């Protein structure tokens, strides 16, 4: 199912608004973000292609199944372990970020711990589904939300308050030395492919080349919207003032004839489901990898223990991290993620070539 691959990548592109990417990019807008984004595109596409190409040699299998018969058990565990920590923390950052957004914009009086419980309930319901069902659900959520995304983007691009001059002004800083942080943040848009580690189970045929062409164009468009539209709305200097540039951007839009006048609410309702899905996908991968690490049979008790550990991490995150700290951590985490991705992709690509050669 070729389209499933596309869904995974698109989901990551959508979620980057929550996971501080616009903020990081805008911070470095005069200091190499533009070049960073431009470099990130070929890197992202390249990794997409190499990794899915390598995994494609094992149709219908996830990484734990592929590596199940390896002799170097500790190496496999290290490999799976590092990915699963990265992926769990990806979900965690999204969860914490979005809880923060919700408590700022929707339910300011509600304690964050309370907000996060309902999220965890929904997430745990989804991550325990079989991989195939998670995919079906993702498909439904994306199709329900696509019209909304299209509508909001259309509204922003046609808005009279979008200042193209500001965008061009930032564009003139093209030839600055690229910033690593900005580049790492921009590659996150493409890193949905890593979900294939588990979701390759549902992809039984060869990925066609048009997938990567679509990803290329979507990625360029996505990075453009994430980065430049807030600048266009708030000005090249003003954009930096906001903690969540895109959410403030959506709040500057107004639907004159709709009963819901502020686009912010439509935007947030749409992101409630998208972030739910993104966290669930990441944590589903983490959960399945954890199950794959322990070779024993699945049992309910262990499952509950893993979920309890997830819950504890989420609660601890809510209690100890504030927005600014989370933002800073995320910027460094992005670099780490890029490193892990590059290493994983290279190792796996070479291994798969040797294996099947």
């Amino acid at each position: 199912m070729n389209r499933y691959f596309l869904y995974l990548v698109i989901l990551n592109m959508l979620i980057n608004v929550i996971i501080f990417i616009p903020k990081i990019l805008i911070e470095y807008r005069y200091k190499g973000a533009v070049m960073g984004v431009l470099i990130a595109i070929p890197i992202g596409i390249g990794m997409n292609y190499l990794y899915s190409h390598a995994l494609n040699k094992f149709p219908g299998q996830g990484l734990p199944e592929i590596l199940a018969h390896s002799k170097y058990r500790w190496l496999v565990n290290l490999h799976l372990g590092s990915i699963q920590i990265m992926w769990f923390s990806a979900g965690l950052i999204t969860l914490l970020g979005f809880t923060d957004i919700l408590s700022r914009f929707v339910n300011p009086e509600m304690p964050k711990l309370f907000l996060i419980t309902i999220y965890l309930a929904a997430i745990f319901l989804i991550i325990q589904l079989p991989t195939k069902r998670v995919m079906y659900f993702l498909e439904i959520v994306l199709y329900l939300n696509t019209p909304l995304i299209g509508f909001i983007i259309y509204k922003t691009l046609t808005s009279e308050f979008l200042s193209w001059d500001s965008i061009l002004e930032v564009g003139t800083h093209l030839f600055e030395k690229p910033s690593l942080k900005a580049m790492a943040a921009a590659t996150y848009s493409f890193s949905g492919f890593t979900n294939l580690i588990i979701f390759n189970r549902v992809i039984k045929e060869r990925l066609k080349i048009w997938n990567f062409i679509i990803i290329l164009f979507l990625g360029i468009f996505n990075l453009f919207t994430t980065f430049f539209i807030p600048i266009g709305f708030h000005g090249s200097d003003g954009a930096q003032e906001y903690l969540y540039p895109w959410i403030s951007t959506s709040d500057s839009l107004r639907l004159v004839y709709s009963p819901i006048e502020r686009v912010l609410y439509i935007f947030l309702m749409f992101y409630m489901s998208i972030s739910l899905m993104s966290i669930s996908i990441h944590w589903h991968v983490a959960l399945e990898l954890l199950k794959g690490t322990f070779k024993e049979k699945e049992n309910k008790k262990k499952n509950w223990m893993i979920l309890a550990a997830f819950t504890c991490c989420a609660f601890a995150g809510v209690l100890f991290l504030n927005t600014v700290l989370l933002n800073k951590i995320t910027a460094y985490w992005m670099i780490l993620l890029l490193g892990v991705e590059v290493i994983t992709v290279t190792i796996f690509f070479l291994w798969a070539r040797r294996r099947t050669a």
Partner: protein
Amino acid sequence: MKEIVRSMEMPSNKVLSIKEDLKEKIMQSEDAVFKELHTKEKYIEALYIKTISDETVIQDYVVKPFFEITTAERFLDYLQSHPKVKPFENEEQTLEELIRGVAILFYQDFIFIFDSKVDRNNSVLDTTVETTIQGPQSGLSESLPTNLGLIRHRYPETTLKVESTTIGAISKTKVMILHDEKLVDQDVLRRVKEFLASVDIQMFQTGEQLLDLIKKSNRALFPVMLVTERPDRVAVNLAAGKVVLLVSGSSFAVVLPTVMKDFMASMEDIYQTYWVSIFLQVLRYVGFVTSLILPGLYVAVTSYNPELFRFQLALSIAGSRTAVPYPSFVEVVIMLFMMELLTEASIRLPKAIGPTATTVGGLILGQAATEAGLVSNIMIIIVSAVAISNFVVPINAFSFSVRIVKYIILALATCFGLVGVVLGFFMFLAYMVKLDSFGQPFLTLVQTKSSKE
């Protein structure tokens, strides 16, 4: 010489003992009949229960020929070649058949089972539950052979396979499993048969009971089988490769496996033009979502995020709520409860009083409640919208489930506001994706079966 022939015709000891056995087991009922007929050359004995056997059939096919055919051998030939006559197999099975209305004939050294079952309730009923404006108007009957005939009539394919089994320790209800051998998914068929074999129940009266039985095994909130009264729906589903169960004595057929799409489909979709049926489908889904989230959304918007709506609308909602002395969720719960009572009452009430109850309840109560300041005007609108849109769902069993889910979403909205509504809705979707009906996922976006991978 004549003595020898006589002795050959006399029943053997084995047959005699079977006869005595059967008589002993059955004769204590008032309606059991044991009849002997004699002519000069031959005699025959018949054992049957007159309340469930058709005596005119016995009269026409056994008694009359018995007196018309003179020689003993000719009559034996007649019996052996008659289509309604089956040879004896074993005592247990014979007894089983006897209490279902066959007549047991003892002739010479033979025992015959003569099918004289009376087929009551074989009149075809009009559809009352799944009505359509156009298309066939008649439903199934309460008789199994008639139903099978109706379906065969609509589905003239040699690949249509009919198997039968019995369910129920006491009722021993005959259940027929129909499927198209060419189209059916063998895995599904196997699961259905396993499920039927695992059903442990005493009295099995109708296919709807299966819904409950499967629930006890996995506590599904939603029905995963479709119960229908329309032979045309059965035929369409057979052509889609589904398995159909017909239950003796019930005018409803059970279609397995069923997914969300089937519950949202009315037979009318086929009988309308393309755009009309698309419009109706969209209408149904919108109604479905409305009845699910509207009460929750009301609570979330009035109590948590009044700034969601543009301020004129927010003000008019708040204005209509000024007289209401309690929080919005109490208001919603009261009105929904009233509505549920009304719905229940109008189902149970005799047809003659039904409209009165709805008028009194719906119009007068609603009007009075707003004037007394107990609920807001907008609340009345919402409750009626929820009630009406709930009935847009064409299959009753499914719309009942939806009625329950809206309370869950309402509860989440009360606790978490807007987040509760949105996440509640998606949790509900995830739950439906999780459900499966005999191996088929209950809800997927593309619900056609993917090509065999």
